[in-house]
């Protein structure tokens, strides 16, 4: 009987235990949600924007309005904006140039020495090691070192950097003239083309063009000269702003929540490697940070809309033709103006800096018109997004000024020294990473400045320059008052509509402005002999760091 009782008790306990375990089991979907939220936050802390985004994306599939998922998405998108900016910097820096070891450089120099290729590789025996890798990408450098003969070097790695010979230049420019591409003063004249050609085209490109029966190739040929910026513009146009609506919608949702949901993240920063930039935003995220995020995204939209509206199909080889060696102010200015001149007047890369339009033969007139209209819309969007950006900055300032939350531990918060949860006059908002600080009055002024600019860009209202000057003074930037005075003097107006060039864009894009810059550089170059020493251009000279190559 006793045994029976024990067995019954054991069964009851077992049943209870099983029931308990059953109750402890979490819904798998719920578990997946928490996994994604946790992993997403982890990825954010490690700065892995893509992974973080995808985790929060999966989380949103399970719980579309989960505040953590929305916050995570917004913060991921912000990181992605910085990644994209970093990508832009990489693009502007050109393709990746190999970083060889000293031994590899020595090996390369030996090859150049054996084949007497100093001139072709734009270096010398003395500067070979310092100049290494002679602007070669990894595979090109590999080709150089592995080349069995001198001809193999010339036809392999060399063709990417060897300047077009004068003979080829003459043939090339005559061909361009024959095909109607020499159109001075928009482009170089035939003679200017022949003179400047070695500094605009490398053998890789001109050789390809000439080998293809150059007299039959028209301006629409894209097979020989690199038009890679167009591809970047298309990619940016399609992808760069894909997540902007998401950030705006999700942040609006979070801003409209009755009970504010704050998101905490232990480590989080906006950063870039080159140029080095870091803004630590660890801590609690609330309304001001949401506005900051919206402002950042609109700023990115400004850049993208503007960048894709202009014809930036430029001769990037022109950038590589100058090594800035032994720079002085005069040499620098000479180089700069020549580079700009090549960019503006290259007969192959015609229409540089004008409004972007379809440029290939296969484009019909309707397509061209549509592309121009698209570029015009991008310009208008540039202006509008500029306005939205200012609007969000104004809202951020307002939110900060009215923030009565505990400030300690906030990603963006004023120093509430007396813990009264109010921004007092003697308290500041410091952003040490950016070397910025705002007092309460300055924040008011900043808000006012942003509201004025937002009104201008969104509604097209003119900005009163005297008001602007007062705001700048209140912000502590009295020195910029001179710039305002200068603007008033140049335009002859007390009010300026900054949004005009965006709202009423011209087909000419920024080309007129670039032509002005070219003129300015020419003037500066002409006067460069009289520059005072404190300009310090000679400090740009880096020859001293060179270590000569010797056998």
């Amino acid at each position, binding site marked *: 009987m006793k045994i029976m009782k024990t067995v019954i008790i054991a069964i009851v306990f077992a049943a209870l235990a099983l029931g308990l375990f059953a109750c402890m089991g979490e819904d798998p979907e719920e578990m997946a949600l928490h996994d994604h939220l946790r992993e997403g936050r982890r990825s954010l802390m490690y700065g892995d924007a*893509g992974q973080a985004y*995808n985790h929060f994306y999966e989380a949103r599939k399970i719980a579309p309005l989960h505040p953590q998922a929305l916050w995570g998405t917004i913060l991921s998108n912000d990181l992605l904006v910085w990644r*994209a900016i970093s990508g832009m910097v*990489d693009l502007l820096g050109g393709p990746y140039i190999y970083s060889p070891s000293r031994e590899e450089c020595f090996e390369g120099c030996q090859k150049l020495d054996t084949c007497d290729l100093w001139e072709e590789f734009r270096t010398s025996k003395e500067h070979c090691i310092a100049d290494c890798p002679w602007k070669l990408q990894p595979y090109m450098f590999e080709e150089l070192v592995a080349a069995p003969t001198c001809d193999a070097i010339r036809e392999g790695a060399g063709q990417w950097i060897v300047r077009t010979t004068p003979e080829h230049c003459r043939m090339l420019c005559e061909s361009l003239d024959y095909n109607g591409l020499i159109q001075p003063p928009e482009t170089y004249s035939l003679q200017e083309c022949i003179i400047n050609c070695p500094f605009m085209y490398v053998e890789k490109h001109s050789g390809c063009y000439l080998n293809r029966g150059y007299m039959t190739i028209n301006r629409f040929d894209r097979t020989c000269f*690199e038009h890679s910026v*167009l*591809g*970047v513009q*298309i990619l*940016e146009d399609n992808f760069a702003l894909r997540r902007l609506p998401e950030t705006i919608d999700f942040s609006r949702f979070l801003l409209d929540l009755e009970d504010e949901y704050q998101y905490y993240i232990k480590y989080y920063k906006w950063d870039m490697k080159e140029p080095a930039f870091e803004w630590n935003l660890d801590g609690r995220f609330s309304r001001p940070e949401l506005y900051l995020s919206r402002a950042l995204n609109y700023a990115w939209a400004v850049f993208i809309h503007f960048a894709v509206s202009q014809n930036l199909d430029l001769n990037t080889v022109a950038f590589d033709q100058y090594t800035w060696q032994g720079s002085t102010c005069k040499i620098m200015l000479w180089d700069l103006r020549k580079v700009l001149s090549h960019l503006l007047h290259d007969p192959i890369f015609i229409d540089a800096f004008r409004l972007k339009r379809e440029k290939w033969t296969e484009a019909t007139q309707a397509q061209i018109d549509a592309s121009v209209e698209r570029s015009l819309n991008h310009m208008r969007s540039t202006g509008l997004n500029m306005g939205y950006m200012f609007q969000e900055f104004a809202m951020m300032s307002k939110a900060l000024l009215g923030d009565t939350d505990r400030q300690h531990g906030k990603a963006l918060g004023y120093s509430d020294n007396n813990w009264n949860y109010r921004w007092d006059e003697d308290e500041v908002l410091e952003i040490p990473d950016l070397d910025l600080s705002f007092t309460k009055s300055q924040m008011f002024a900043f808000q006012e400045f942003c509201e004025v600019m937002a009104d201008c860009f969104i509604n097209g209202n003119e900005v009163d320059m005297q008001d602007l000057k007062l705001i700048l003074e209140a912000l502590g930037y009295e020195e910029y008052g001179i710039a305002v005075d200068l603007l008033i003097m140049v335009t002859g107006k007390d009010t300026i509509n900054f949004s005009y060039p965006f709202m009423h864009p011209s087909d000419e894009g920024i080309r007129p402005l670039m032509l002005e810059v070219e003129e300015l550089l020419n003037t500066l170059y002409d006067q460069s002999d009289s520059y005072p020493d404190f300009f310090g251009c000679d400090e740009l000279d880096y020859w001293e760091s060179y270590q000569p190559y010797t056998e």
Partner: protein
Amino acid sequence: MPKFMSVFCLSLILVLVLGIGVAYSQEEGGEDKTPADSESASDETPLTESEEVAPEDVPPEEVEKKDPPFGNYGKMIKHYEKVLMELPLWGMSSTIPEGFAVVGMGWQTRRPYKRFDQDRKMVDIVPIISVPDPFDQKGKFFEFDFGVSGNASGYGAGVMYGLTDHLTLSLDTYWAVLHVKIDPIYTPGTADKLGIVTLEDFYGMLEMLGRPRPVLQYDSDPADLGDTTFLAKWNNYRGDNVATAIQGGIIFPTAHQADPQQNIIFGLGPELDTGAGAWGAKGGAMIDFKMPAPADFVCISFMAEGAYFLSDKRDTPKFPPLEQDVKDYLASQGIDVDIFPDLTDTGDYYYYTPPPYFAATAGLSLGIVNIAYRHGFGGTAKYESDSEGFKALVDSIGLVGYGDDGKITVSTNVPLTPLFIPGLLSFNFEYATDGRNALVFRDVYTIGAGIGIPIDVPDRYKFKPEGE
């Protein structure tokens, strides 16, 4: 899949004989006949019921046997059992006796597992694509895992008929049941600098490079018809211990052809042709060696077979226009974009010639268990098109190259004659051992059933019910 019907039918013949033999020997006392006996039995005079059950050297108590059940039907089954047992039907070269037909059906399941690559290494069916970072040459640009999964099964059906004792005609086909799914995982690396962060973004980039977004799932509904093969097999020599045969036939283009917009060959989806889908000719030769008694249950067989196909006109898939500027940019960054040729000039159709193949099989039969090793060599399929881009596309995907594969097959068969059913059940297991550029399937099991039917049997085999 195309092979399994023939393997099944082959084993069906062999085992029908052997299985019946086993059943016969169990039930009738295990009479061991020599080929000479068999030949003497193959007389033009039909065997009578009394002759069948009263051999002179059998003890009287065993001669007094019970009649089989089911009346004349049971007697007929027993009669044909005996007829078949007495015929020298062994090895791969054996044929169906004159006037008999065999109708077979089978079901097979298999699971796509891996793939033998160019270097005969077993790798994932579709390897993860990892593109190196073009920006600072560290890490990756992105990674793309296709996540291919699925299963396949199939039904086969065939009929064989003995036109003479040494000439068999057969017709077989099959239906494939396919469930293939692609569940891709995109992991961005530095591609996020260009805003290509999610799978959707990645598809967007693919579209810019002239590729439609891939179809992610294919389910045959309910099954896709495979090739239909008509064969004539001639057992041209049959000695005591050696037998040979040759066969030849036509392959009809009945196989289901994948929708070009989701054909795996073009990297557009998971669908694939369930056979050659083109007219073809098939031939083969086989030789068997039967061990002398008492090891005469052991038979070693060799077979060589091959097929050649004619070209077939097919529809080309449609591709979105390529953004040449985007391609140029990616190429300038050192990304390999050769797999994205311009496909705007593909036209409406192309000509496809399925790869010819050759296979050699060595088999060992031990009673009702057969073990065989088959090595097949596939040629390169031909894609003829005026579009250079189209040819480059097919080459770059690389699923159509020369390849070979080897597999071991173990099969066994259960006769149904003890149950008075004139047929057998066949079980077959296949295991891929090695190969190059070939898919590897696992869990390849086949079960089949065959029924023998006397259609127009000559008098020497004919069953005469009592009283006739």
